[in-house]
């Protein structure tokens, strides 16, 4: 039995699973393209303009511009996380799709890899849809902000991998609410999203950097959209890359344990 950290044998056939999900996505494109569009507006109006009227600016940056990258980073997190928890769980448990697919040359590793890639692709598409809205409001800088799109893919892999680990160990679909409310919601609030990390007591700042993956995505996203590039960006990127790789590997192995009996 392969260990948790063994690199799983994934083949290019995983693209078939990715493509299957893409086809379903485009089949229901109206439902899928509308929310990110609306969500961008909602955040901008409620938090940017609403709270922004009182806050005005943070460290010399207009408040709307401060939260714009956080809006993008949160969508990266939400779209990959929810796709690879509830979405994957439904396909695995209720639709029995994974069982059907592993009767073909695809292995379970291929299937899970395809699901992870798909989760990251959703993040990428979400960001690509939101960017024009934010750009139209002039709250992000161009063209550097376009790099948010590839960043969304890497961040997406990170959250897809985390999500798939939960999906692999959850006893049922209801218990997926635990990570959704106890991990995702705090992360959305305390990752330097709507107020800078520096406001947190020092110890919590370190906890946030170590345990809340979103902080790293927000940090790079903000460097791109303000723009305010710095070398620490590379550290954040390395953190995302390393952790994304590890959680993806672990999630595939956990899923294998769950499904292969």
């Amino acid at each position: 039995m392969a260990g948790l950290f063994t690199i799983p044998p994934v083949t290019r056939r995983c693209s078939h699973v990715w493509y299957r999900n893409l086809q379903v996505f485009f089949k229901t494109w109206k439902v899928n393209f509308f929310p990110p569009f609306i969500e961008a507006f909602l955040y901008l109006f409620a938090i940017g303009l609403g709270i922004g009227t009182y806050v005005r600016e943070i460290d010399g940056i207009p408040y709307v511009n401060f939260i714009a990258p956080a809006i993008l980073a949160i969508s990266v997190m939400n779209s990959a996380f929810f796709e690879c928890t509830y979405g994957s769980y439904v396909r695995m448990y209720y639709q029995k799709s994974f069982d059907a697919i592993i009767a073909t040359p695809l292995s379970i590793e291929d299937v899970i890899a395809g699901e992870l890639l798909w989760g990251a692709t959703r993040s990428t598409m979400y960001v690509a849809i939101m960017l024009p809205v934010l750009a139209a409001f002039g709250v992000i800088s161009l063209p550097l902000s376009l790099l948010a799109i590839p960043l969304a893919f890497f961040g997406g892999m990170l959250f897809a991998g985390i999500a798939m680990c939960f999906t692999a160990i959850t006893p049922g679909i209801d218990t997926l609410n635990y990570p959704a409310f106890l991990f995702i919601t705090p992360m959305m609030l305390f990752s330097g999203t709507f107020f800078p990390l520096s406001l947190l007591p020092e110890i919590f700042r370190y906890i946030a950097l170590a345990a809340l993956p979103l902080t790293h995505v927000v940090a790079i996203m903000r460097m791109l959209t303000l723009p305010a590039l710095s070398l620490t960006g590379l550290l954040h990127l390395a953190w995302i890359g390393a952790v994304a790789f590890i959680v993806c590997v672990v999630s595939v192995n956990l899923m294998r344990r769950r499904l292969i009996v």
Partner: protein
Amino acid sequence: MKMIQCVSPRSGGSLSVFGMDPDLHPAEIKRRIGVVPQETNLDPDFTCENNLITYARYFDIPAPVAKERADELLAFVQLTEKRNVSIEKLSGGMKRRLILARALVNRPELLILDEPTIGLDPQARHLVWEKLRLLQAQGNTIVLTTHYLDEAARLCDRLVIMDGGKILVEGAPAEIVSQYASPEIVEVGKSERVIACLKEKGVPFEDAGDMVLVPTGSAQDLAQTLLERCHPEKLLTRPATLEDVFLKLTGRRLRD
């Protein structure tokens, strides 16, 4: 079954499919196998036709070929007019037929079916049987599991009866019946009088609920004797079946 399909790891012993080890060459083996699972796991997000086309893609079958085969297979299982219908709108029998079509999309050399007609009405069952016999006649190898022994008797050239993971008997259905059961059975309505009468005559019998089964070489003679001497309320004669063999070998106790 799952081990042959390269889905479950081998629990022990040796296994070779097409001369290959499922642990080492799962993709190559699975490429040549078609599987009809017991559970209906069609893709609910697609229509009938797209289910087949999507499934063909998992086998790296190019799209134009997939389209062609989907047409052909939908016709084969008589679902052509349901081509653009979503899976939810199909009846149970239609779903089973579509799963059979799906299992054939890669032109498998070996077709594995796990209880292919479970829960089907008689018409649908007969249609599936007809298709399976057609595939059989074309020279396909079919491995199927079933609890319906009439199904096994109809379809199988070679049959293995298993219980608790052990092979009890093996052979052609007719041979197994003639080997393990007397040619004919007389079923007699159970009553104290009948049982006393049978015991008195020293005829071996088996208690089966409200009937008593009496195995015999010649049902006609025995029936006549019983009618004259034991005066049963009900009596019928029939040839022995696989079901008799199965119950004889595995017992009548419920197995949960």
